[in-house]
């Protein structure tokens, strides 16, 4: 297909055809990372700004490597090193970045909607690398890529997402992405971690972990942020892991070929036991590997791969 979307802001705006095109492109680019010389000249002369307003290691490094494997020049800016700490507004910082003529701005921000705001204020293509509790489209796309790679399809699969749905942009983007591709998504976690009206995104909700993983093809565990305990979301890590932690014992109740996923970083022993994380069905490191290919695909598509000069 001819790619003509300028920004990657969230999963909601991507069509089935676009999601398929992104994953197809990523599948094709994945091989580059297996080469002895892991570099192609595709984006030579292009500049990618990695504007990370919130701490991130995995996603930032993944985008950075993706840009470099395509020969783009990648520049990282973090909140502490940017003028934001000097009181400059987000919009002013972005306009200043734009004045230096980058070809893509990849933004991670703690406030939901910040990438959309930027896309309205600057003309550079924006890729959302995670905004507040809203969206994390590159994560959802790499998750779908990983599932499709193993299962050969997304349509008709059953996916369980377990944990703190409420505070998770990964969950939101995966719910929208997987359901759009025809998968059945069920959510599990304590009621304190279920956001209001989440069913309207097309997922079913249960508070019972065993019920959630019964018969599913994919189990996606979410990271428990330990500081949330202070907001009364769960009593103790001990009780959380007993009720919602994935263990080998629990896995016996699931399908033998179930895929185990986690967006990382892992809290081993809390939401996932070490042996479950390292078990045969775990694709957690495949997700990380695919993350580079998927982000190469996004950069390639928005930074002037097949897209025509006209910006829509």
């Amino acid at each position: 297909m001819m790619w003509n979307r300028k920004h990657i802001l969230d999963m909601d705006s991507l069509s089935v055809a676009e999601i398929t095109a992104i994953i197809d492109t990523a599948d094709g680019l994945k091989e580059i990372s297996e080469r002895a010389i892991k570099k192609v000249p595709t984006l030579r002369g292009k500049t990618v700004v990695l504007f990370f307003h919130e701490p991130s290691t995995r996603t930032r490094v993944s985008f950075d490597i993706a840009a470099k494997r395509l020969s783009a020049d990648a520049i990282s800016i973090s909140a502490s090193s940017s003028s934001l700490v000097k009181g400059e507004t987000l919009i002013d910082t972005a306009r200043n970045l734009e004045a230096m003529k980058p070809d893509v701005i990849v933004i991670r921000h703690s406030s939901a909607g910040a990438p959309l705001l930027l896309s309205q204020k600057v003309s550079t293509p924006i890729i959302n690398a995670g905004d507040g509790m809203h969206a994390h489209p590159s994560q959802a796309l790499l998750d779908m890529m990983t599932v499709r790679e193993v299962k050969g399809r997304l349509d008709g699969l059953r996916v369980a997402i377990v944990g703190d749905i409420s505070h998770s942009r990964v969950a939101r983007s995966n719910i929208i992405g997987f359901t759009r591709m025809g998968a059945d998504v069920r959510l599990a976690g304590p009621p304190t971690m279920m956001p209001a009206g989440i069913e309207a995104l097309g997922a079913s909700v249960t508070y019972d972990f065993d019920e959630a993983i019964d018969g599913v093809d994919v189990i996606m565990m979410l990271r428990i942020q330990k500081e949330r305990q202070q907001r009364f979301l769960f009593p103790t890590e001990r009780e959380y892991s007993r009720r919602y932690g994935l263990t080998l014992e629990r896995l016996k109740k699931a399908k033998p070929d179930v895929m185990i996923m986690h967006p990382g970083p892992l809290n081993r022993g809390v939401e996932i036991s070490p042996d479950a994380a390292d078990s045969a069905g775990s694709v957690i490191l495949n997700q990380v590997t695919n993350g580079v290919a998927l982000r190469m695909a996004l950069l390639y598509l928005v930074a002037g791969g097949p897209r025509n000069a006209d910006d829509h």
Partner: protein
Amino acid sequence: MRMIIKGGRIVDPGRIDAVGDILIDNGRISDIRFHESGKQASGAPSSVDSYADPQKTADRIIDASGWYVVPGLIDMHVHLRDPGQEYKETIETGIQAAAAGGFTAVCCMPNTRPVNDSRQTTEYIIHTAKRLQSVHVYPIGAISRESKGLELSEFGELKEAGAIAVSDDGQPVSDSQLMRRALEYAKGVGIRVISHCEDTALSHGVMNEGFTATRLGLAGIPNAAESIMVMRDIALAELTGSLVHIAHVSTRESVHAIREAKKIGIPVTAETAPHYFTLTDESVAAYNTNAKMNPPLRSPEDRQAVIEGLADGAIDVIATDHAPHSVLEKDLEFDAAANGIIGLETSLPLGLRLVAEGALSFALLIQKMSKNPANILGLTNDIKTGASADLTLIDPSRVHIYCVANGYSKSKNSPFDGWKFKGAAMCTIVGGRVVYEM
């Protein structure tokens, strides 16, 4: 100076509803002459021969035929930002906006810089407004010093200086003992207490809790963050026998609690704002910071309950919570943007939409926008001989498009920019002076 307002439909809810002329001499209504035997309550004057031929002696005749002539509208909840944040609004620009919206009086909340907890700030506001010879400005003093919720401010001195009520608006009184004592003490001073009801332990959010917040990934504020405190204040009003006025009601639970409290005689009154009976949280849509306010825009069910509360009397007053903010506070990430919208110039047109929809009668709308606020605040606001000529002239069929850029308020943070309205204030008269004409 003699003025005649000729041929308007005079509506003073509960007292007058008839076509007639109003004669104004030296700022006061000197006579009212009804054209025909319209219905009128007892006590309303009807003196056909009390002036011979006023047209020959009047300095100004305003043809109000086809218009309503109502007691001046009163907005009992505005933020004028002066002193301290004059880049958002000044007393001058705020009252120009008020006059353009048909208001003859506004009550300004104390969250200025400094907080209005003193005679000095109260007098500054009153004197500045008086010099401008326009809309009446009644300052509201703080319940607690600097609105910090720790100790009572001096209600007695605030009242002497001219404060009309006390409130820590924007800074909810979390300490129930402080609220109890404020209500008790206010009874002795004879000053009204206005409560911003919000349980801050529950309100860690930036918009209404619900599907839209979930979809946008924004932290939600549940209805209970408001209604818990409404119920607490009702309990304290019952305990103290002192009237509490609940500001900006946004939820169905609050409406229900107030309605039930009134049924059993607890002294409570309440207001809502036009945005709560017009919009829902879906207006936040694509992180629109002009749909960010506190309390937040709620669900369609809440909006409907607020309208029903206005219709059945659970909610007494429509007040705007006019909250000017500049682009510095609004052109930001949604989380970082300030709460609040301007409202003075859109309140009446939005109220008239309710009338057009059949939710309220025109007279009831004027009750909510003029008579009830006056009653709650101890002001008199009747169209009668001898009264100060504070009048609003309304053309109910005037179609116009609200363009915030052309508005009088210094700030432009309105979600109603570009809305098409039917009905507008054509002329605002304060003390016999025309302070606004469309």
